């Protein structure tokens, strides 16, 4: 566990950054709670995978990234999408399958993508996007830019072949990529410990790729920021890839319909007690931020979510012509001539 604060969040001068991180976390939390409500109301029709409880990872890394950096995420990618500054309304509309959706409803919750924000996609086949993230990082390097790619995935993902191939290639080619394993202890309904040969699915495997093991408290946004800043800096400076394991927990089930009852109550309770939001809120209060400032962040977030929901709900279903659009780059789907 990292117990030194990154200089950027250590001093009182860092309040702006920390408030930004807090704001991101609050927005993620409010957004996803609303998404859950909408699902209960039958308005989110497909599946969705919430990151409730894991906000400190997305926020800490999001805050440490520059606009030119690339994000690759999984189906559990709402938080990582918001962290790049993608507005809530199109994300909400995408979950609801509306025309105003980020991808006009064609991708759905599991595939959030906003190239304009360098949110390069959410991928729903476990493992694949680690190899694709490499490609973006490789391109950044070949094009001589200073872009860094950050790639998020879960603990369960460390047991699939693509993980291994991606990590090795990243290390051999010294790519500017940061792999972030959000170890929330569970795959879908199976505990990671029961199917993994090592205790830290990512941390204990870093040496297999010549990388340093890094295991951090993923519920502590200062710790995630610190690890992010260090790894991103290193990557940007030509120091190659990192593999970071952030220990965290999802508060709810795996996907929308799952109550998550297979988890021991005591485990759930102990992690709820370590909820990253109140933890960070307290820390900001301790650092001298006023209750009022925090409350106004929270109020703004609630409003933003309300507005986004309204906008999304007001949007019509996508035009049916979209079914045959954009299979190919000419905009169409014609496979014959």
């Amino acid at each position: 566990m990292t117990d030194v604060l990154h200089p950027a969040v250590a001093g009182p001068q860092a309040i702006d950054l920390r408030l930004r991180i807090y704001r991101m976390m609050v927005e993620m939390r409010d957004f996803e709670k609303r998404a859950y409500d909408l699902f209960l109301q039958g308005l989110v029709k497909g599946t969705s995978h919430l990151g409730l409880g894991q906000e400190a990872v997305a926020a800490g890394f999001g805050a440490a990234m520059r606009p030119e950096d690339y994000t690759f995420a999984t189906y559990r990618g709402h938080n990582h999408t918001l962290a790049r500054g993608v507005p809530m309304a199109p994300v909400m509309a995408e979950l609801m399958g509306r025309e105003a959706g980020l991808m006009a409803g064609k991708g759905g919750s599991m595939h959030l993508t906003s190239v304009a924000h360098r949110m390069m996609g959410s991928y729903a086949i476990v493992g694949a996007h680690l190899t694709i993230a490499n490609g973006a990082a490789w391109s950044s390097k070949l094009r001589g830019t200073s872009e860094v790619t950050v790639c998020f995935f879960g603990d369960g993902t460390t047991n699939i072949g693509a993980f291994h191939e991606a990590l090795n290639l990243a290390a051999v080619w010294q790519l500017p990529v940061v792999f972030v394993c959000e170890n929330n202890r569970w795959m879908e309904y199976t505990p990671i410990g029961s199917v993994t040969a090592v205790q830290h699915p990512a941390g204990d495997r870093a040496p297999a790729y010549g990388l340093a093991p890094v295991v951090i408290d993923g519920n502590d946004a200062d710790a995630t920021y610190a690890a992010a800043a260090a790894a991103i800096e290193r990557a940007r400076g030509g120091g190659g890839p990192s593999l970071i394991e952030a220990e965290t927990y999802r508060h709810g089930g795996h996907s929308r319909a799952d109550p998550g009852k297979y988890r021991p109550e005591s485990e759930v309770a102990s992690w709820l007690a370590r909820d990253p939001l109140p933890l960070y809120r307290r820390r900001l209060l301790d650092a001298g931020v006023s209750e009022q400032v925090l409350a106004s962040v929270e109020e703004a977030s609630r409003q933003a979510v309300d507005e986004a929901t309204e906008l999304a709900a007001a949007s019509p279903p996508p035009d049916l012509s979209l079914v045959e659009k954009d299979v190919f780059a000419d905009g169409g789907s014609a496979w014959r001539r």
Partner: protein
Amino acid sequence: MAEMTYRDAVAYGIAQEMRRDPSVVFLGEDVGAAGGVFKATVGVLDAFGPTRVFDTPISEQAILGAAMGAAMTGLRPIAEIMFSDFFAVCWDIVANEMAKTRYMTNGQVTLPLVVRSGNGGGSRFGAQHSQSVENWAMAVPGLKVVAPSNPKDVVGLLAAAVRDTDPVVFFEQKSLYPTKGEVPDGEIVDELGRATVLRRGGAATVVALAAMVPRAMAAADQLATEGIDVTVIDLRCLVPLDVTTVATSVAETGHLVTVEENPRLCGWGAELASIIAEENLFDLDGPIVRVTTPHVPLPAADALEDAAMPDVARIVDGVRRSVL
């Protein structure tokens, strides 16, 4: 005789075979303790215990490799690939290893195993969790391919698949899981490679598979009200393919319409159409019409997904175009 969901029929069928034959073992992601992400294998772990039912890591190649190695050495594994889209991460084991090993070894190696998988669209899961990939399997020599449309067939065809001495890919259509049907009491064992004629009519032969079967039946109902009586065939298996039943019917009706969920190109419909166009051309009185999902990935939004997949209206229209 009990009414049962398609979902429950899976666990029922697995249990029937595991009870009968101690060499049947079952493995996959979240299949044991959780009873499967589609809840199609609830109770199997409880009934047969952790020496026969195995929760695995997210390692599809390792899952199917384990099944194959076990099948080579005396067991009869049933492996689950959660969504059929994930065949893409372990296709090597299916297409290059399981399918070819008996042939390459001149019959030395026998692979009695079943790979079950949730297949198909309609659940708003988007392009990577909704594919119908039965044609991927059909295209590979050495695999048998099954796709039941109702609970009774799930049990009977699963039993036939488990007892078969070849690798069988068994597609369960996800949108059918909640549907119900009668399942007779006692042991049910069906036969691979026999299509079922669900309805007879002289106007055209409509051939469907899995989730397209109820839609084809609904289309037949609608056409009947217009005086167009069609034969509806549930293909049930792609390999072995019951060409006889289809060709016999086409000889009577003069028209063939296939209804498939997979995207347009190179589906089983194309195979069937080509067989008829080669062997029974002069029986045809009208064009062979294939009703398919267009050649697109599946969109996530409900409105779009519904528009993409073959529906009753498109089937009706397809029949009309054939009999015109």
